[in-house]
């Protein structure tokens, strides 16, 4: 360990810490624009920036696996699904007249409360935790996989069952809708509704690198150390 590393303290941050802070600010700003912009599709695209910024934060914290899964699931699938849904609506180019909801203050309260709860839980959980930095990087694929399938198998499987239930539910709902309306279903739409659930619960078959389940409990993985 060099002298510089030994002595850097709270007031002399490293480059990574500065980058972390800056990316965090960008992410926060993008998230703010997402909920305040009056152009619906712009909101979805700013969401891409916010989610991508989060992925960069994961990378800076050496959690490489989680970072790529974040991009794969959220940017690659969730936002695409969102845009797909928006294209089916009459979202205009330019301002949507009714983009502002009357519940914005209630929404703000809930958001602040949720953020406070999360911060409190994380701070409380890691207050006295010492993380050993000498071993392999804590977020690497190998370490993540080992902790997921050794220490956290039960929650992992429980989540799989939950997602399976969601899949079955989606199928039941779409079949009932089909029975009620005798008109032929829009193929692609029915397919996409179940696609999210298929993605997630089909990982039950035991693939070690199941992306979508792994992203569900990053916090739990961190908790093992």
């Amino acid at each position, binding site marked *: 360990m060099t002298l510089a590393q030994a002595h850097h303290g709270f007031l002399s941050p490293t480059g990574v810490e500065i980058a972390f802070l800056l990316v965090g600010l960008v992410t926060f700003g993008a998230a703010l624009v997402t909920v305040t912009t009056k152009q619906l599709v712009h909101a979805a*695209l700013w969401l891409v920036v916010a989610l991508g910024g989060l992925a960069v934060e994961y990378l800076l914290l050496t959690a490489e696996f989680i970072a790529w899964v974040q991009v794969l699931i959220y940017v*690659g699938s969730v936002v*695409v699904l969102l*845009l797909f849904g928006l*294209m089916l609506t009459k979202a205009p180019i330019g301002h949507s007249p009714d983009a502002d909801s009357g519940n914005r203050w209630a929404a703000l309260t809930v958001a602040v409360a949720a953020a406070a709860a999360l911060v409190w839980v994380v701070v409380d959980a890691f207050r006295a935790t010492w993380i050993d930095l000498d071993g392999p990087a804590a977020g690497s694929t190998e370490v993540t996989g080992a902790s997921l399938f050794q220490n956290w198998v039960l929650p992992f499987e429980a989540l799989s069952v939950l997602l399976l239930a969601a899949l079955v539910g989606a199928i039941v709902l779409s079949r009932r809708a089909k029975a009620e309306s005798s008109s032929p279903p829009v193929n692609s739409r029915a*397919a996409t509704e179940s696609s999210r659930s298929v993605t997630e619960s089909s990982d039950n078959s035991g693939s*070690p690198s199941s992306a979508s389940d792994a992203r569900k409990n990053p916090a739990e993985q961190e908790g093992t150390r």
Partner: protein
Amino acid sequence: MNDALDVALRLLVVFVVFLTFPLIVGQTEHKVMAHMQGRLGPMYAGGFHGWAQLVADGVKFVQKEDIVPAGADRRIFQLAPAVALLPYLLVLLAIPIGPGEGAVGQVVDAGIFFVLAVMGVGVLGSLMAGWASANKFSLLGGLRTAAQLLAYELPMLLTAASVAMAAGTVSLPGIVDAFEWWWLPWQITGAIVFFVAGLAELQRPPFDMPVADSEIIFGAYTEYTGLRFALFLLAEYAGIVVLCGLTTVLFLGGWHGPWGADGLGWVWTLLKAAVLAFLVIWLRVTYPRLREDQLQKLSWTLLVPLSLAQIALTGIVKVVIR
């Protein structure tokens, strides 16, 4: 300083590959398609068998006026080609063409996830273009693009997971290192599913419903002219290079060849990728376009079950041989 030079050199090489290989594939497509249809293809530009046709095309595209429709969402319309193109540049960084550190732009620990995640981002470019053009054909194209991505991303991921299970790693060089010749019959279903799903994600014929030029006039790209349109085309061909490279690395053993991987390993990688690229062109000439519902059906009722079966097979074999 030496490190910086090394990084700069790698980036430069990847960038040059990114600029030249798609053009080579494009030129090959011109010539192969022409000969398969009993034509000669470009013969004049550059002199020898029209080798400079795509350079001439590029010059033509640059000279054209860059038009943004009055009703379009300007910034998103202009940003879309970059979003479509840049992910492929990033993916090329992670594809190894030979053994060792020297033959890959950057070793990524979770390589499979990196390439699939970043490739998925490229589709956002088409969606942005489709929505921002203020054109109904473009909107239809964008819708179809999104539906197609959602359908084909899943089998692609599942088959990639199958290879990762077989190799016991998700790093791309690690997978090729672990490759044995008998993986070829073992993973053949996965390979075919991956390749077909990749073709669909690139919207190549016969999966080109989102850009069907005779029905919705090139879909999301209807309103584009000049350089921006050329960038979308370049993205398609860069996508072919990336897909062929990935299939080679994941399923065909990359630099492994009949006479060992020493020295000429990268030739094997390029050769296999070139054969696959030829296959892509061949498929375009051979098959008619699939209808939108046929597209969805192919993925959900055939490719997804096949990829799940491949995963099961991989798991069984993996347990048996341990």
